[in-house]
């Protein structure tokens, strides 16, 4: 579904991702893990067209999207839930969600999608007329994920969905990720909580200073000594 080959990504002129290759297959949950500042979020930005690789190639469902604009990428069925949620704070929850479906004009379809995300996060229906900034951190994360689902993506990029929320809600968020996958959405997950990230995924990549340092199935990596030492504190 997604194929990343030898991609380099830079800000201004400083390369952050040097040479990264990986793939995500239809129906998978793939995790990207790695310490702070190793370029995980940068990779996601490079996929969703916020920044563009100068070297390397990204294909999505057979289409070359290396140089594609973000609106084209959303239209192709990729949706990026960014780090730190990035909601529109002064707009209502409902408007945030509607904006997630910006590329669709069909109101019946939009309502169907709203029903779908309200089904996943019933609390958001109660909060729908509230300004996004007035929600708790966990609720805001739900809005961010729901907003990402409103474009009806085939591939959902999630950047640290557990960031800044209570442990009990983290469980809930991961349960939701599993549920979304069951509904046919492929998931690429960036996550600080390495234990959870490896538990939930089919395969994972470890990013270190802008390169893939290790890859394997979740189980393989959980058993790996380097992972246990560097991330799980075992």
């Amino acid at each position: 579904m997604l194929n990343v080959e030898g991609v380099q990504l830079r800000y201004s002129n400083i390369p952050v991702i040097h040479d990264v290759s990986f793939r995500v297959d239809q129906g998978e949950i793939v995790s990207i893990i790695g310490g702070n500042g190793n370029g995980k979020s940068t990779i996601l930005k490079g996929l969703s067209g916020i920044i563009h690789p100068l070297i390397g190639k990204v294909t999505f469902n057979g289409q070359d999207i290396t140089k594609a604009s973000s609106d084209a990428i959303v239209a192709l069925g990729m949706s990026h839930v960014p780090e730190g949620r990035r909601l529109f704070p002064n707009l209502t929850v409902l408007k945030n969600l509607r904006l997630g479906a910006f590329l669709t004009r069909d109101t019946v379809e939009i309502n169907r999608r709203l029903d779908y995300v309200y089904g996943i996060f019933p609390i958001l229906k109660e909060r729908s007329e509230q300004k996004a900034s007035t929600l708790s951190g966990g609720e805001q994360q739900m809005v961010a994920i729901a907003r990402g689902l409103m474009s009806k993506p085939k591939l959902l990029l999630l950047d640290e969905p557990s960031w800044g929320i209570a442990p009990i809600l983290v469980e809930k968020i991961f349960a939701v990720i599993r549920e979304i996958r069951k509904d046919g959405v492929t998931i690429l997950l960036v996550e600080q909580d390495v234990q959870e990230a490896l538990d939930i995924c089919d395969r994972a990549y470890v990013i270190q200073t802008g390169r893939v340092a290790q890859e394997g199935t979740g189980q393989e990596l959980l058993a790996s000594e380097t992972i246990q030492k560097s991330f799980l504190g075992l």
Partner: protein
Amino acid sequence: MEGLFIQTLVSGLLIGFLYALIAVGLTMIFGMMDIVNFAHGDYLMVAMYFSFWCFALFGMDPLYSLPAVTLLLFGLGILTYYLLIKPIINAPMLSQIFVTFGVLIFLRGLATFLWKVDYRMIPQTVLSGNIHLGDVYIGIPQLTAAAGAIICNGLVLWFLKKTRLGMALEAVAEDKEAARLMGINSDRMFALAWGIGIATVGVAGALLTSFYYVFPEVGANFGLIAFVVVALGGFGSVTGAFAAGIIVGLVEVLSGFLIGPQFKFMFVLVLYLGVVFIRPQGLLGKK
């Protein structure tokens, strides 16, 4: 005396609505992309000349040429964006100031060159006349302008709050990058903001031509007032601009009435300074 006072209040209110309309485009463009359009008042001047020439050349009343003037200014706004603003959108603030200030100088120079510094006025329009309520005289052109401004401001607000594109404009204003992740093309939204922002000035100019002189520098005062309104209302706040327009209109006429007409702009500027010192974010501004 009392009648005169009410008369003054009413005229302040009427002109205040128009100020709000002039300011709305300025605040919208600023809110979207943090660019201050110093030439804002000069687009008003351009609109007034269009409106004037429609009358002088084709005998078209300013009220009837209003849609055409609005459309023209909409186009001019979009053109300005793509030609001049887009290339400097990520440039340092100083470059941005030079560009919009350059537009100001260019437009004033062009108008002076083409049409001389003469004050021009349309002697008789379909709106000419007064209505009186008790002791209070209200010019029909002024009343129409105020009504037009209320309607136009209402439309802008409705567009921003209730339509898909308006929502996208607000989203870009709130978080450009997040808006891109929704599939919103921020470039097109910027162009649209310039189109609408300048078109609203077009409406204001067209309404103003029925009762105000047209001359190359006419944008200077109105532009200045628009800045005060935007600062008072809060940079980027459209609803703030509505309220602030009315306040500025009232301050202007009341200080003119109570202290002396030669001081009225002084008090508007005092108000501006007061805002800058006491509440720099404006009445409804964020931050």
